């Protein structure tokens, strides 16, 4: 080694440098390890463990209390038991010789038994080897003698095994006997032991759990802490990343599709923790404190520790979205594999929250991640990935509305007809990719669809009326006036506004739009063709006053509204408001006849109209013929038509617009100049394909000024219809094969934001943007400031402010949500300062719809959910047949506004009740005990008690919930404590608590319902409940039937003479559990062609413009919704087996009668007795109105066998008020009245069943009767 001075560098300094670099290296390594280990999820897991420990401790405390009153007492009691056991034990050990001997013997026997067991196992193994060797020998075909040898070996071993097994078994018996003997001695001690175990079981279980997460012992704790160290924690530590691997749920990242790994539960540790009965272990709630002890005390847990809401729908194994199959990101989006707040791409719900997150977690807009988590307000959009039919998200008998906002968006799109311009194709090839919202094929397109079975046609009708015959209805002036601003004429219209919007506000725009308006009106009149119009009979004098009554009674107001003080309380908006109708019609006869024809036969004018045929045919009255359609038309005509201004426009603007369409496009500039001067289009009709055909003069010579003007307007009208896409909502002649003009939306939710054109929207919103013209940016800043300082005046203000703020923020970050929201809010704002640099015809055309910002948000939620990325088929919601029919039926209910007239779900009242305040059933002499039982079996009672309580006068009372119809509504002007509600219940309810019911169910395991619930536990349907206003907790409005309820109020004052029940009988009936009542095939026929059933009612079920398929689905819907069998029902009552059994029963019960009549003859006789005929046409005899005002004509009984289900019919006959409390029909055969004595010897129950069976065999019996001589006809005598 050379000396130091020989080195180039000073070796000591080198050592120092080396030392420093090594230290730096160590520091760097440690820093790296620290950074690697310092994951934020560890903190969350630590906190969660703490919270869980505290919660378990609290539970333990509670368990102590339940078991013994307190922990001390528990320990005391436990110690006592232990002492007792120990003393018994020592007593046995010390003073019982027999015990000692037996114990020793048992121990010795046990040892021997185990030894023998071990020997047996060894020998068995040898035997198995011998058998395997023999089997191998057979397989390898070895010589017979060798095989024989192997067999012999096996046999020998097998014999040994069998012998040993026998000995072993004997030993076991011996041992058990000894044990039993011992147990007899130790019985007392064993009982005490068992009690001890039982007594401490709950606590012990909690102890075990606690010990596993927060051990008490020092060693265990040290081990647990040690397992959290870096590197060590890699070896199955309790701190670890929790992940759900979802191999079948893919996510598309850039170019590739990979399985999802959701690591969300790493931080959200409590998310899927549910206790028995799907109760959240860690219910969510915002708590101010950071201390888990406070969370436990309040039983509210903040994010990320809380459990998921709605365990019935999400995460649990019994829910439709079990966590193991679905994970998190399929619904929430975001970066599933992330383990930090930031990387997971949480989506703030508004800029205020975003600021908070920025401060707390360093959150920022990461535009690199394509699928950020959906913010709360748009969360429902992802449901559409799998729920392509959408309807189940809004109306669901099992779960309620689980995605009401997405559902509302879907409804709004259907209401406003967005799909007319923006096709939403739910199919890619034949594969379903999302919700399908497309127009049905036009007449021109239909053959194409018919020819190709792979093409799936759209199903939606255009939302606007047909304009094919518009000239018969309205004038050119009106069309222009209307189109310019529809809401000016009819404030409630759905038609959006195209003109007079911000991008047409400049002088050029205004000039050009007035030309377009005139041209549109001219073209629409030009294209209109005539249909034959009906007229009332000659000399008929329409009566407007009568028309008004008919208008209100014949069902018009189920869909339409009309401003009139007599019609207060009606608010139907399914069809347009008719207040203004008179003003727009052509004057005089023409307008009247059009209206008359339309009312009588809507499809003549518009074959696809949803307006039904209301059977408004003329009828005769004592005062002469009444033509209701004419009367209503007269009424609607009111003050007659209004004058509208002739559209004004500038000739120069006409030229400008024509120039813009033609010059340099269809024609060269020179050709255009020549055309303009000579008025002769340079090409002949055969060379022209487009709208320019309108510019070819078909007469001789050159057109005169008027013709020329007409040609130009017609041309511009055609161009405008195409430009604005009018045919997306209206049928117009000549546009049958035109395509929707807007962007298709089926995958808009994944549209690359770079392909959106925000233009100058940022500047626009900086200066304008609010409805009043003020700056949206200022509004948003203000809202965010208010959110920060918590100075919003109301929740509504907060919601509105932060909504705008959210979408504004999204828009300035070029997000899709902001873009679509602004597009809906102010579609033309994207033209801000753009109109200056583009041609008139390049300006944006999307119209402004009369929607609120809340509705815009709902639409945005829906459209953002259109991603055309369906997961694997097993994840797509595929309803069973029943659910499918229910869902499709639901759509049809809305499509045809069935709910306008019919109440589908009754009113629901929740109210507080005193102990025993519900009058349960107590048998009355008139009741059929059998009927009561059968009713409860047929219609299972629902629980009345909600489990909630309500304070009344300082007393906490249990609340009950009942469905039915109000009989008496409280007077809202009275003080709440004086208000009284009266209410008729429509379904059986039982008064047992859940616990009681469960214990009874347990007691009679697999028992029939009737063994569990007795009639005494049930409040029968049709009971009158009186509810003091102070006890009322909430009222849930019924589903549908608004018109019926309105009409009832009208009729009470009028024709029903103050009788509410009679008024209800005159109105459209509620369809509560209609599926239980009618036969599906009858309903199908009825929907297709409704016959007149009821005679009490003031209107008739109209005939809808419904396809066979739709009628089928709707008929199935009712049965599906009520869980009744469909589409086919058997009628066992018509089958010989049933009838033979009934006959036998009849013979046994009434032997004397049986000698005279068969069972059916007896029944038929009962049916044809003097009772039914009073109100019904029956047995070939027509109903005759007498003078008795109590007699109300009921439906013709002839239909019953085809229309009604037998179970329903029977219940109805037992007591009609169980089914329909307002009915006039009395219970026909009360148990305590021996009517029609010889028949069934006056037994009401037998008569009831017999009449039902007679009704079911009606035609058979009618036929038989008609073949019998009159003298032999069965009578009571």
């Amino acid at each position, binding site marked *: 080694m050379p000396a130091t001075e020989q080195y180039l560098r000073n070796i000591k300094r080198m050592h120092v440098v080396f030392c420093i670099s090594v230290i730096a290296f160590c520091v760097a390594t440690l820093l790296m390890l620290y*950074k690697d280990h310092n994951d934020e999820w560890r903190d969350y897991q630590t906190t969660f463990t703490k919270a869980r420990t505290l919660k378990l401790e609290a539970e333990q405390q509670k368990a102590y209390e339940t078991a013994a009153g307190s922990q001390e007492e528990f320990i005391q009691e436990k110690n006592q038991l232990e002492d007792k056991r120990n003393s018994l034990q020592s007593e046995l050990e010390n003073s019982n010789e027999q015990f000692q001997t037996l114990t020793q013997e048992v121990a010795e026997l046990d040892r021997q038994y185990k030894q023998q067991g071990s020997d047996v196992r060894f020998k068995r193994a040898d035997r198995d080897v011998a058998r395997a060797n023999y089997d191998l020998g057979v397989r390898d075909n070895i010589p017979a003698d060798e095989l024989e040898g192997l067999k012999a070996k096996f046999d020998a071993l097998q014999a040994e095994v069998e012998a040993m097994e026998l000995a072993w078994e004997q030993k076991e018996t011996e041992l058990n006997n000894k044990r039993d003997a011992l147990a007899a001695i130790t019985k007392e001690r064993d009982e005490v032991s068992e009690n001890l175990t039982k007594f401490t079981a709950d606590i012990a279980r909690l102890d075990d759990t606690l010990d596993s997460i927060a051990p008490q012992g020092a060693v265990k704790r040290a081990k647990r802490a040690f397992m959290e160290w870096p590197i060590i924690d890699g070896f199955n530590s309790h701190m670890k990343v929790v992940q759900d691997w979802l191999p079948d749920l893919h996510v598309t990242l850039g170019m590739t599709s990979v399985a999802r790994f959701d690591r969300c539960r790493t931080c959200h540790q409590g998310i899927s923790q549910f206790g028995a009965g799907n109760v959240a272990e860690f219910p969510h709630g915002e708590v101010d404190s950071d201390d888990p002890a406070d969370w436990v005390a309040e039983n509210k847990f903040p994010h990320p520790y809380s459990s998921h809401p709605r365990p019935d729908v999400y995460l649990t194994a019994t829910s439709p979205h079990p966590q193991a199959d679905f994970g998190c990101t399929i619904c929430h989006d975001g970066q599933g594999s992330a383990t930090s707040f930031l990387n997971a791409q949480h989506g703030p719900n508004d800029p205020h929250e975003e600021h908070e997150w920025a401060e707390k977690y360093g959150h920022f807009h990461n535009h690199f991640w394509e699928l950020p988590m959906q913010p709360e307000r748009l969360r429902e959009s992802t449901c559409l990935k799998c729920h392509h039919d959408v309807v189940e998200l809004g109306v669901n008998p099992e779960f309620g509305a689980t995605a009401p906002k997405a559902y509302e968006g879907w409804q709004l799109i259907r209401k406003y007809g967005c799909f007319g311009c923006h096709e939403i194709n739910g199919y890619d090839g034949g594969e379903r990719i999302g919700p399908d919202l497309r127009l049905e094929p036009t007449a021109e397109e239909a053959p194409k669809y018919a020819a190709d079975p792979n093409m799936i046609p759209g199903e939606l009708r255009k939302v606007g009326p047909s304009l094919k015959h518009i000239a018969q209805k309205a004038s050119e002036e009106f069309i222009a006036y209307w189109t310019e601003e529809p809401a000016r004429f009819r404030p409630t219209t759905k038609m959006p506004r195209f003109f007079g919007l911000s991008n047409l506000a400049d002088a050029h725009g205004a000039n050009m739009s007035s030309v377009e308006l005139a041209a549109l009106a001219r073209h629409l009149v030009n294209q209109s063709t005539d249909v034959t119009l009906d007229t009332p009979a000659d000399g008929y004098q329409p009566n407007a006053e009568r028309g008004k009554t008919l208008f209100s009674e014949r069902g018009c107001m189920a869909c339409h509204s009309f401003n009139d003080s007599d019609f207060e309380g009606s608010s139907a908006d399914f069809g347009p408001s008719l207040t203004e109708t008179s003003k727009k019609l052509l004057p005089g006869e023409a307008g009247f006849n059009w209206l008359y024809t339309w009312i009588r036969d809507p499809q003549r004018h518009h074959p696809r109209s949803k307006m039904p045929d209301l059977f408004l045919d003329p009828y005769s009255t004592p005062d002469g013929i009444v033509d209701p359609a004419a009367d209503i038309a007269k009424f609607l005509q009111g003050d007659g038509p209004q004058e509208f201004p002739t559209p004004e426009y500038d000739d120069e603007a006409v030229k400008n617009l024509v120039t813009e369409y033609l010059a340099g496009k269809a024609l060269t500039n020179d050709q255009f100049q020549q055309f303009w001067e000579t008025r002769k289009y340079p090409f002949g009709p055969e060379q022209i394909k487009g709208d320019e055909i309108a510019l070819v003069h078909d007469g001789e010579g050159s057109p005169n000024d008027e013709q020329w003007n007409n040609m130009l307007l017609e041309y511009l009208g055609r161009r405008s219809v195409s430009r604005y896409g009018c045919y997306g909502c209206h049928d117009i002649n000549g546009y049958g094969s035109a395509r929707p003009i807007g962007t298709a939306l089926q995958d808009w939710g994944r549209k690359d934001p770079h392909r959106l054109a925000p233009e100058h929207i940022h500047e626009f919103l900086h200066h304008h943007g609010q409805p009043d013209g003020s700056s949206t940016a200022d509004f948003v800043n203000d809202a965010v400031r208010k959110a920060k300082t918590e100075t919003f005046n109301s929740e509504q203000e907060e919601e509105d402010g932060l909504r705008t703020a959210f979408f504004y923020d999204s828009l300035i970050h070029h997000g899709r949500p902001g873009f679509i929201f602004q597009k809906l809010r102010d579609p033309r704002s994207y033209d801000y300062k753009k109109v200056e640099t583009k041609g008139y015809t390049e300006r944006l055309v999307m119209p402004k719809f009369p929607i609120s910002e809340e509705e815009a948000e709902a639409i945005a939620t829906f459209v953002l959910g259109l991603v055309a990325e369906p997961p694997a088929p097993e994840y797509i919601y595929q309803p069973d047949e029943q659910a499918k029919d229910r869902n499709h039926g639901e759509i049809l209910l809305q499509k045809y506004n069935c709910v306008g007239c019919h109440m589908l779900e009754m009113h629901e009242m929740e109210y507080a009740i005193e102990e025993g305040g519900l009058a349960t059933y107590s048998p009355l002499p008139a009741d059929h005990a059998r009927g009561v039982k059968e009713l409860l079996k047929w219609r299972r009672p629902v629980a009345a008690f909600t489990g909630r309580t309500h304070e009344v006068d300082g007393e906490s009372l249990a609340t009950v919930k009942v469905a039915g119809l109000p009989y008496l509504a409280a007077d809202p002007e009275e003080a709440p404590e004086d208000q009284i509600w009266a209410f008729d219940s429509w379904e059986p309810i039982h008064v047992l608590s859940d616990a009681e019911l469960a214990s009874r169910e347990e007691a009679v395991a697999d028992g029939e319902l009737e063994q569990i619930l007795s009639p005494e536990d049930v409040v029968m349907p049709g009971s009158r409940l009186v509810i003091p206003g102070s006890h009322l907790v909430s009222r849930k409005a019924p589903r549908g039937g608004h018109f019926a309820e309105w009409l009832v109020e009208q009729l009470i004052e009028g024709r029903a003479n103050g009788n509410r029940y009679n008024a209800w009988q005159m109105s459209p009936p509620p369809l509560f559990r209609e599926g239980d009542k009618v036969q599906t095939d009858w309903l199908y026929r009825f929907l297709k062609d409704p016959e007149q059933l009821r005679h009490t009612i003031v209107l008739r079920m109209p005939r809808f413009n419904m396809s066979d398929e739709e009628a089928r689905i709707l008929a199935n819907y009712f049965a599906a919704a009520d869980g009744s069998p469909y589409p086919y029902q058997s009628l066992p009552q018509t089958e010989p087996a049933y009838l033979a059994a009934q006959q036998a029963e009849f013979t046994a019960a009434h032997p004397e009668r049986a000698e005279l009549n068969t069972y059916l003859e007896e029944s038929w006789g009962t049916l044809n007795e003097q009772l039914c005929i009073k109100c019904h046409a029956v047995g070939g005899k027509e109903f005759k109105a007498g003078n008795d005002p109590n007699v109300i004509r009921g439906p013709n009984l002839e239909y019953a066998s085809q229309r009604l289900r037998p179970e329903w019919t029977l219940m109805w006959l037992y007591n009609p008020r169980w089914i329909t409390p307002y009915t006039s029909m009395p219970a026909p055969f009360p148990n305590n009245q021996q009517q029609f004595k010889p028949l069934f010897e006056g037994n009401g129950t037998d008569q009831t069943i017999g009449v039902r069976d007679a009704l079911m065999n009606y035609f058979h019996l009618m036929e038989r009767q008609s073949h019998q001589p009159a003298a032999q006809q069965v009578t009571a005598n």
Partner: protein
Amino acid sequence: MTGPHPNLTPSVIFGLGFLYLILFLMNVAWTVRSYKKDGDVNIPSLLGGGHAPVAFWWGLYAAFLSMVTFAHFTGSGNPDQFLIILPDFIKAPIDILVADPRLFFGITLLIFIGIIVFRRQLATPTAGWTLLNASLLFLTLSMTDYDFRQIVGKPDNVPIVAMLFIVGFFTWLYFNRANENDERAAKGLPPKESENNEKVLVWPDLVYSELICIIALTAFLFFWGVCLQAPLEEPASSVKTPNPSKAPWYFLGLQEMLVYYDPWLAGVVFPSVILGGLMALPYIDFNKKGNGYYTFNERKFAVSVFLFGFLPLWVGMIILGTFLRGPNWNTFGIYEFWDVHKLEALNNINLSDYWWGGFGMALPANPLIREFPGIVLTLAYLVFMPQLMAATVFRNFAYRMGFLRFMVFSNLVLMMAALPIKMVLRWVLNLKYIVAIPEYFFNI
């Protein structure tokens, strides 16, 4: 609510405070060094005259830096009123200068020439330190601009910023050493390197040093990896490419060539020629001087040509590609927002369009006829130019190299020159291709 793109935020001001602190500490050290080595300087009579150590001025400067540092640490609470920023009247002209590739290229050329011409003045320690200070101050002040910060602060670009300082340092080092040797040569002394050329030991002089370097560098990389997280962008997608879509920084020079040349030339031929040419250099070089020691005077041509190829054409292009090329491959000033909506008129036409259009004729169908002016020009450039060079400025070279070596040399020089020539043609004439035969993917 502050705007989405604030020039200053409290954390930026606070962070810059640390940069100034480092600068301050560096200058304190420099003041000490200066006090020991630099001696005195005259004080202008205006300030009282007399002498003062140079270190005095450095001390003054360091004191100023300490105040600036203090201001940053204390004034971070109120970004709107913070005054130490780069004013717009400085930003605007800089943006104009660098945002135009023509001006940018001109400036890099000027800097290159300046380096050569003023090498004696610039390669002194004081000048070097002053330049370092100036560049650091420029960087620090520019950081007060949001857009500058976005580009320079991108974790991707940090090594490029470091590279600029490294390139500057080594260029300075080269000239510093070369100047010294050139001066020695002028005095008839041997180069400095030959003075101290005794052998040293493998251990510890070599291996120990290497070990220390390995450990220190690894530690440095660890620190870097911990402090600057790898930048993640969106998942790769062939249907949606990033805008701008950039090559790794060391290829940005090549990518810049793609603006002017067809991919087969810029992506295949030129890189091959560059690699092959660099390998061929020792065989082309006939100058025996300058081996094993720094010198400029003895290798003026070789050094200048290399530096021209390296500084303006390679490093300059990397700077252009990294910091100035933004969305749609448009150029942006360093303080300019990378606006995707910015449009630049980019209509270029081929030489054949000029030629046939100039005669008022339609383009011939046969590509060879159509493109004959470009083909002739290109051939002339590659075949006749070497002859011309051999006959004129490079007569001496041609004589000493011999035909083959001279042809290789001259073609390499011509190819290198082809890039600036094409750039100028593009800028001046909107020339797209000299030879454009897209039918056979052959464009020059």
